[in-house]
């Protein structure tokens, strides 16, 4: 009685049919034609991700300093020039650094007089630096010591005058102070700062931390550990979760039921807490963090792969292939993998983002990574103490986490739009 009609009111657009025919890699490459905005989303975040990978592989190309080097004054705010006190000596004295002022046992002066301005913080820096040098000298067993006899004067001019007169061997004052009056004392020069020039090269874009490490350098080196944790734990989860999901979905029955119940409870358990437990038991190391985080994400892959496998298995062509006696392996490879790969690639990307956040959380809590690691979470945890005075210590590592995670999340988002027909706009 009815006309022979198609059921659907609107026929599937041609571009969608075309899309359905091509494989998933080609679909991605060609997708610009059909998904302008989302394609660009994927493209931009891919570039960001690649950038982060390069930084993680070769941090030394980008970071001005090593991750553990103490290269500057402590708590230098971002953008500030290090205002290291200069060592000022008579040009003809032959002293070029603080170490030159050290004296041996046979010297007539046991404590070299050094002039400072009364009340200025330079005296403290001088004392600290001298103590450092003194320790080194003692360790080296040269018999030399450096114990400055600090002379205090009321004004800059008086300080410099005492050096000019030879009363003091050297003066220590900030470069700003010295430059103002330098013209009046042509005999004096400032060959170096009191650290002997080690720290003065510095240009600390993001400031320095509580032990004088460059924040930017630690950020750049921290990329490495973040990506190692993100990628490795996601890969481990992938290589365990996907086959388990395939097996459960394909086999069905009791195997499936038992595995699913187990995976579901694992999935329901608060991930970070489980990771905390695992790292607490296994002890701190990068490998253990990777294991702990990987365990959390196995169920994610398992669930999606099992679901997809179940639905693909029921589709007609797989039934047909089975009925003509195709081997399980062939069916997996030919029919199930191609259907599962798009979803897995989306999860993988989002998963890395998740793993990085979880890893940062673990190290923020002081678990998992050895405390000396250049890691963003650790930096934030250590900076928390100084949040009242040094905002940059917690702000920048957090921003770094956010940026990396954002890149991976956006990649996953864009891929979802392109590869997942369910959410696709009609």
């Amino acid at each position: 009685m009815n006309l022979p009609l198609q059921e659907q009111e609107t026929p599937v657009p041609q571009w969608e049919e075309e899309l359905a025919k091509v494989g998933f890699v080609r679909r991605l490459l060609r997708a610009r034609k059909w998904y302008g905005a989302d394609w660009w989303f994927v493209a931009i975040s891919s570039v960001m991700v690649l950038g982060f990978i390069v930084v993680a592989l070769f941090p030394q190309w980008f970071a001005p300093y090593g991750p553990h080097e103490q290269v500057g004054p402590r708590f230098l705010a971002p953008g500030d020039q290090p205002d290291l006190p200069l060592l000022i000596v008579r040009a003809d004295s032959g002293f070029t650094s603080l170490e030159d002022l050290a004296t041996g046992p046979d010297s007539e002066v046991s404590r070299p007089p050094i002039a400072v301005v009364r009340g200025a913080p330079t005296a403290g820096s001088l004392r600290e630096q001298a103590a450092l040098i003194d320790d080194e000298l003692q360790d080296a067993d040269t018999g030399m010591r450096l114990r400055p006899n600090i002379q205090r004067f009321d004004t800059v001019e008086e300080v410099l005058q005492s050096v000019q007169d030879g009363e003091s061997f050297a003066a220590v004052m900030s470069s700003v102070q010295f430059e103002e009056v330098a013209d009046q004392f042509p005999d004096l020069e400032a060959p170096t700062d009191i650290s002997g020039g080690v720290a003065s090269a510095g240009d600390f874009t993001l400031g320095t931390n509580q032990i004088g490490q460059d924040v930017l350098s630690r950020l750049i080196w921290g990329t490495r550990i973040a990506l190692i944790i993100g990628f490795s734990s996601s890969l481990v989860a992938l290589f365990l979760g996907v086959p388990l999901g395939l097996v459960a979905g394909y086999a069905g029955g009791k195997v499936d039921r038992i595995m699913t119940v187990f995976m579901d409870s694992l999935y329901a358990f608060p991930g970070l807490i489980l990771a905390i437990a695992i790292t607490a038991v296994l002890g701190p190391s990068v490998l253990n963090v990777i294991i702990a985080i990987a365990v959390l994400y196995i169920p994610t892959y398992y669930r999606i792969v099992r679901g997809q496998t179940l639905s693909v298995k029921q589709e007609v062509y797989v039934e047909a292939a089975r009925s003509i006696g195709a081997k399980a392996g062939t069916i997996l490879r030919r029919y199930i993998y191609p259907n599962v790969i798009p979803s897995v690639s989306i999860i993988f990307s989002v998963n890395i983002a998740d793993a990085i956040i979880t890893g940062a959380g673990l190290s923020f809590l002081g678990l998992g990574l050895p405390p000396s690691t250049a890691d963003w979470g650790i930096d934030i945890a250590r900076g928390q103490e100084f949040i009242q005075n040094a905002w940059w210590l917690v702000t920048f590592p957090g921003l770094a986490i956010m940026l990396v995670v954002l890149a991976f999340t956006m990649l996953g988002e864009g891929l979802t739009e392109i590869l997942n027909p369910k959410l696709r706009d009609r």
Partner: protein
Amino acid sequence: MANPDILYSIRNLTVEYQTRHGVVKGVDDVSLDIRRGEILGLVGESGSGKSTLGKAMMRLRNGSARITAGELWFDGQDLMKLSERQMRDLRGSRLGMVFQDPMTSLNPVQRIVEHLTETMLTHEPEWTEEEARERAENLVERLGIRRERVKDYPHQMSGGMRQRVMIALALALNCDLVIADEPTTSLDVIVEAKFLDLLKELRDEFNLTILLITHNIGVVAEVADRVAVMYAAKLAEIGNVNDVFEKPLHPYTEGLLKSVPNIELDSGALYKMQGSPPDLSSPPSGCRFHPRCPYMMEEVCPVYEPPFERPEGASEDCRVACWLHHPHPQKVAIGA
């Protein structure tokens, strides 16, 4: 609109869709009058634009569809000039719609009675909850559903009952015009027959006018007074049911009737129309049916679009868009 017999008049309506392949005309320059108290059947294949037309008549948003030209006159009002707010007041109170699938057209988490009272109270805010409930129960009972069932959720009812609920929703405020979009497609044959009987009864009882959109020409034969045939976004033919079924003028209508097994126009085997409906993003030139038409005239049909006119000698209500019934098709071709 001067003629008081005509309840709803569509004038040169064009509805366009925005697709990724450009603009598609889902309804292309269609004019149609619906008379007070009649049941007008609108037949066509899927994608012919009949559902789009139905939704456009209520100015309902339908994806990216947009009315780009034409006028809609309902009971002397120009609907295109009404604000969205005024239009909303008409929907459900004077213009009702019954959808194809009553399962998905009822809110699954709302009880039947809530559907009804919500509609009533939206349009008649001064009614009390109890009044509305009482009316809802009476209405449902009139349609052959037990009163108590109004407390059910849609999924607890059968397909036929749900479709009756849909009708009840259109009757809740005594709509003048009910647009029924494939109302029986999801029902089985027996339920369908009952439903159609009910529709006829209700038409008389509630003084309804019904536009029955369907792809099932048998349904039209059963209940409609007049029938309009739509093909590829345009009207192909319109006429009284008896005339059209006795002597279809448009080759497409003829094909439709021939392919229905139980109406014996031709004693031969079941006829199957050749070809398939055209892609509306690039419709055929001239007469849109020409690639499938057995009577196609080479010089005329693929080139010139036939006018929608009353052929000579046909009855008063009849219109057809086909060069076969034009007095001088060849002359048109040469003259142009």
